[in-house]
């Protein structure tokens, strides 16, 4: 294990320790990604990491270390931020998502996103879930759309609570229900990858548990990258955990390895609460 103060450690931080890249087929893969916000403010530095098929990658790290920034690169959500520049290569199934002939709209229908704050549309529950499929013409008729909505709501664990009030506004649900509605909206488009930015930070423990269970179930059909501030959550749900520090990816490893036997001192400091 490398020892020293945080600054020293960062200064001679070489490559990411652990196993950022996986051996088999990866779903998404970042290599040497740098992101700059306006005025060349570099937010993340030289990050390379893979997202395997059917795995949950947890991203942890202190506030402002660039977790959201990396996540938003994966579905080009950063395109909407004026002055944001992404360098390096990010691929989805081997195709560079930043290449000229990739349409971000198409990309986002394959890489869905769930945000930190539940953000349902001020429309009915049904319309919230049906919005994506309608956009992309995924259902050929009303019955198919009904089925798709039902299936998505069942998967997100919201069907029982909402099947009798699909026409009520989605904004009238509780915070936890709203977040599950947003998840249903995301999976209704049938993406390959789901990005979640602190999906349970605004929720109580029960709603959190429901969503964690849901992620666990979704794993069988999707690749999930989740940013979280809860170490327990990362330990409970993820297959691999990535630790970020000041814009750098310090360590990536099997989750139980990170939490029981971290390879890097910065990681150890953070998970044992000695960070800072």
């Amino acid at each position, binding site marked *: 294990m490398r020892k020293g103060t945080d600054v020293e450690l960062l200064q001679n931080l070489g490559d990411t320790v652990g196993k950022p890249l996986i051996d088999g087929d990866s779903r998404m893969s970042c290599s040497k990604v740098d992101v700059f916000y306006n005025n060349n403010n570099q937010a993340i530095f030289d990050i390379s990491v893979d997202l395997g098929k059917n795995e949950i990658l947890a991203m942890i790290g202190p506030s402002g270390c660039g977790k959201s920034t990396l996540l938003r690169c994966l579905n080009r959500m950063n395109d909407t931020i004026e002055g944001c520049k992404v360098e390096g290569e990010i691929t989805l199934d081997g195709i560079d998502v930043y290449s000229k002939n990739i349409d971000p709209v198409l990309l986002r229908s394959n890489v869905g996103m769930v945000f930190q704050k539940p953000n349902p549309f*001020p429309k009915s529950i049904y319309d919230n879930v049906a919005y*994506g499929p309608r*956009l992309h013409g995924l259902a050929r008729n009303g019955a198919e759309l009904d089925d798709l909505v039902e299936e998505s709501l069942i998967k997100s664990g919201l069907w029982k609570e909402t099947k009798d009030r699909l026409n009520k506004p989605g904004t009238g649900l509780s915070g936890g229900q709203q977040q599950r509605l947003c998840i249903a909206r995301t999976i209704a488009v049938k993406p390959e990858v789901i990005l979640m930015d602190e999906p349970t930070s605004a929720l109580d423990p029960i709603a959190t548990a429901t969503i964690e269970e849901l992620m666990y179930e979704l794993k069988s059909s999707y690749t999930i990258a989740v940013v979280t501030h809860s170490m327990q959550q990362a330990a409970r749900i993820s297959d691999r955990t990535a630790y970020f520090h000041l814009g750098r990816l310090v360590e990536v490893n099997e989750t139980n390895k990170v939490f029981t036997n971290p390879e890097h001192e910065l990681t150890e400091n953070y998970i044992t609460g000695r960070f800072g």
Partner: protein
Amino acid sequence: MWLEDIESNMNNTKIVQASLKKRYAKERRFKAYGIFSISLSLLFLSFLLFDITHKAMPAFTQTYLKLDIDFSYKNLKLKEGSRYSEKELFSASYRQLTSKSLYEIFPEVTNRKDKKVLRNFVSSGAQYNLRDLVIENPSLIGTKKSIWVLADDDIDSFAKGLIDRNLPESERRIKDNQLVWIDTLEADNRIEKRLNIGFLTQGDSREPEQAGIWGAIKGSFFTMLITLILSFPIGVAAAVYLEEFAPKNNWFVDLIEVNINNLAAVPSVVFGILGLAVYINLFGLPRSAPLVGGLVLFLMTLPTIIIATRAAIKSVPPSIREAALGVGASKMQMISHHVLPLAMPGILTGSIIGMAQALGESAPLLMIGMVAFVADIPQGFMDPSTVLPVQIFIWSDSPERAFIALTSAAIVVLLIFLFLMNLLAIILRKKFETRW
């Protein structure tokens, strides 16, 4: 240690308590200022409304005289026969009818001058009403019939009590002999006040008793229609472009922004001069036409709508945009499915306020000749016409006494339209408001 803490805590409590009184006093004072300002403005407003409606009251009724009209062939100067073409009836003589009837009632009046005064008891427009009556019902010809005809505006003013009979004769518009005649007519039940329907159905006239507001209402309607058709879509599209598509931190875009804000503050008369130079002199569009008026007011309303729309678009929460983009909506879909519907209440309110401003605008329209006297009711966008505020201006400038009431009545009509537009704004806002 802990004792000290408690002591300092109690000290703090005292300090807070001492300042509390001051704070509440400040709050009470502020409330009092607010209530005072609101009362003051309400007072002014009610005074204004009361004064205007009070002054307008006389214009809503109109004095009529009952005269026994003899539709004889001789009086009408028609050849005796059984059938007349409409043209013949149209060109028959109706001028004498009312005068003759009046002479019959007052046979003692023989003096030429007095006869003229008596004749003028009836509005000069009455002969046209009689003409229309005969054309509509030719069987009247050769008969004698009691008919209510429009009185002259002086008689009207007197009947409404606007002229004081106790004033010395020299200061009165109604002279002593006229007073006697009026009293006689009154005793005969030949004078009656009726609802002034003509005010809402006729165009402008030099004679106040025949002047109506309908021409100005239609002129305003055509003008506003042009303004709305142009400024709403162009304003909203410009705002959407500036807010969503235009590059940020670009000097040219910044320049456009500054200019739009400046345009909103430019005095409206400048737009009138611009309209005169461009639309009329350069493009050769007709003067006094609602089309040109609408084009001028469009220039004036556009910045208001752009600014209101941009503010409404800005206030749409970014989380909704991210949600739409996140499921794969294109930018245009995000705007049309989410941003515009959520911004709609603000856009509509801003647009209606802009339109209401335009409806009350007169200065720029004076520049393009909409101040001309137009007796005909406009039938289209190219017909010469005037608009409500300009009609108010024209009437307030007229010497006849009865125009004072008409001016106020026109103001009441304008206020009613403004009120309706604001009501519409509220209804639309309620309708489009999204419940979160």
